[in-house]
């Protein structure tokens, strides 16, 4: 029978299935400091062991400072953050888990380092106590975020109790315009189907525009599947996938490599596979996107305006928009390119990879941030991304343009460390969530691509990167 990619991946991992509830086997478990301490504690209290320690890769990323780290973990000024990072270090040592510690050159955001190391491979089931685990679906893997109880469950049993999701195919056909990125595709899709549009579904992104994306673009897109409500997003394996995986530290070598590749080439939906729902977008219609409100679905093209209440589809949305206007300090019909900003954040598991930094640097090169910009941060996704960027001189371009060049971590995406917005500050951010308070209490977040963030930093307001000189 013809199967979708999701069905192939799910079926290949079923240990047991009964009355619609399945126990599925987990190949890779990524762990960070925020959602793991209670899981390790639970194991300890119940006197349970890790089922397969080698399946776990751990890294501190949410709490780590992005400034000087020469004093090590002891130098983390917030004592509660410090304890959380120390707890991860201790737990990994006790249980024999591979961890890239804070000052390891390979440290970085968990969703950046997994693929970078080849720890994420096609065909895998990948979980992490973090909703942006959907990122790894870019490799033709079944990857999704889990809660801490499930983190403990996977640690103890290598399995998860799951029900099958419905399948949603998002088809993006045609060619993306110059200056239009995977981030814009992700936001345009969320604008179309809403943040609850993918609830209960696993999304497969397909079509010529998706096949044309690099692996990094595909990760950006799958990363934001969760913002459309889908726990898992995925893309079929092709030559671009295989080329990316080849030669990475955890990737298969020698004869295992050819066996793996032969299997990976089967990881696509069969031509006559049936999806529960199909949504189509025309790539050529997608503009650079800017969110205006407090949910990723509150998004318009750079040429657009903050929508007015008469455009709301119902009373619930009208109330939502009214609250968003008030929180964001914006009025209906305001032109997006007339919105001034205070801060800029280039980073996060969505947009902190080398291609993101190259794209932002290309815009910033030889220019300077506008006088009204109080802070413009560039936070690479990992130590290796940082080193690569420095070898290409991108750090110098950013610094000369007035940006700060920081150490890797989640940083101001969620502001668990010292990087945050103050109340009322407005930020152009390459992250994934513009919820109230996300980047700091009272902070106002506008989600954009790295190019658009860099252009906004230079102009001091949102501007169309396609025509910005």
């Amino acid at each position, binding site marked *: 029978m013809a199967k979708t990619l999701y069905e192939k991946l799910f079926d290949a*991992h079923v240990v047991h299935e009964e009355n619609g509830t399945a*126990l599925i086997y987990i190949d890779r478990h990524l762990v960070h400091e*925020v959602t793991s301490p209670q899981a390790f504690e639970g194991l300890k209290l119940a006197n349970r062991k890790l089922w397969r320690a080698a399946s776990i890769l751990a890294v501190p990323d949410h*709490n780590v400072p992005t400034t000087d780290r020469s004093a090590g973990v002891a130098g983390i000024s917030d004592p509660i953050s410090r304890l959380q990072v120390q707890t991860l270090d201790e737990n990994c040592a006790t249980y024999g888990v591979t961890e890239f510690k804070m000052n390891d050159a390979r440290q970085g955001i968990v969703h950046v380092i997994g693929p970078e190391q080849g720890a994420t491979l096609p065909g895998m089931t990948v979980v992490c106590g973090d909703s942006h685990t959907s990122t790894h679906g870019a490799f033709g893997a079944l990857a999704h975020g889990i809660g801490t109880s499930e983190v403990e469950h996977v640690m103890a049993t290598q399995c998860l*109790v799951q029900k099958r999701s419905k399948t949603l195919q998002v088809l993006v056909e045609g060619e993306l315009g110059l200056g239009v990125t995977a981030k814009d595709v992700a936001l345009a899709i969320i604008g179309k189907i809403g943040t609850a549009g993918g*609830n209960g579904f696993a999304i497969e992104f397909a079509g010529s525009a998706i096949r044309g994306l690099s692996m990094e673009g595909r990760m950006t897109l799958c990363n934001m599947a969760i913002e459309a*409500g*889908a726990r898992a997003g995925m893309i079929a394996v092709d030559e671009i996938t295989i080329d990316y995986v080849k030669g990475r530290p955890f990737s298969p070598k020698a004869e295992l490599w050819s066996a793996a590749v032969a299997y990976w080439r089967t990881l696509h939906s069969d031509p006559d596979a049936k999806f529960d729902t199909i949504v189509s977008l025309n790539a050529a219609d997608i503009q650079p996107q800017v969110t205006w409100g407090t949910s990723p679905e509150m998004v318009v093209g750079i040429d657009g305006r903050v929508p007015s209440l008469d455009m709301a589809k119902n009373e619930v949305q009208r109330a939502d928009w009214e609250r968003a206007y008030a929180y964001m300090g914006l009025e209906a019909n305001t032109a997006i390119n007339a919105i001034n900003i205070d801060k800029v954040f280039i980073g996060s598991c969505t947009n902190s990879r080398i291609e993101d930094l190259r794209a932002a640097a290309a815009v910033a090169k030889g220019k300077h941030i506008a006088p009204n910009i109080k802070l413009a941060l560039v936070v690479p996704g990992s130590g290796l991304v940082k080193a690569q960027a420095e070898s290409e001189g991108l750090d110098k371009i950013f610094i000369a343009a007035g940006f700060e060049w920081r150490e890797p971590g989640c940083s101001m995406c969620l502001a668990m460390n010292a990087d945050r917005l103050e109340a009322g500050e407005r930020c152009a951010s390459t992250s994934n969530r513009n919820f109230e308070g996300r980047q700091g209490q009272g902070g106002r977040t506008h989600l954009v691509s790295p190019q658009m963030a860099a252009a906004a930093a230079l102009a001091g307001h949102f501007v169309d990167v396609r025509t910005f000189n």
Partner: protein
Amino acid sequence: MQAFKQINGLVAPLDRANVDTDAIIPKQFLKSIKRAGFGPNAFDEWRYLDHGEPGMDNSKRKINPDFVLNQPRYQGASVLLTRENFGCGSSREHAPWALEDYGFKVVIAPSYADIFYNNCFKNGMLPIILSPSIVDTLFTQVDASAGYQLDVNLETQTVTTPGGEVYAFEVDAFRKHCLMNGLDDIGLTMQQQDKIKLFEQKHQLAQPWLFN
């Protein structure tokens, strides 16, 4: 995990769609390495007028009188009535921990984000899905009568209003079984460890590169 069978609980209305996990429990409180104690910081940014940080004495903070959960009539509520896509955003289990620690045992909404929905069941909380029109009716009734309580029965899968209207809800049979009996998922799965080992051997033969 505590078992859940039936409650008759005071209802608090949170009339917002897309309430996200950052709103339910702001990130600064995620630095804790404990499971308990998040209740005083549930909805922190809406609930208090100042900026909350871990370690503060919450009883001394100035509360926001306009936030619905701070109204005297909703004190002691154990049923949270809210709108669509509740719990969207991050996978942080701190969100259901905070709600549970606050005193909620049941959430009623037209829809939920998947991860949040799943996380509730792991913590003895019941997320109930009712149609938008029934939820509308309940909002109207809660608003109209102080002390409004709902009877929630997991066994019969029903919500009964003070006026005697009975609304049926769906719940997955396995989740219901675990919740009614307070069963620990890990313990249940460990009973299948022979099957897991067998699968693992087969899986390793088929894809040995996964076990390097």
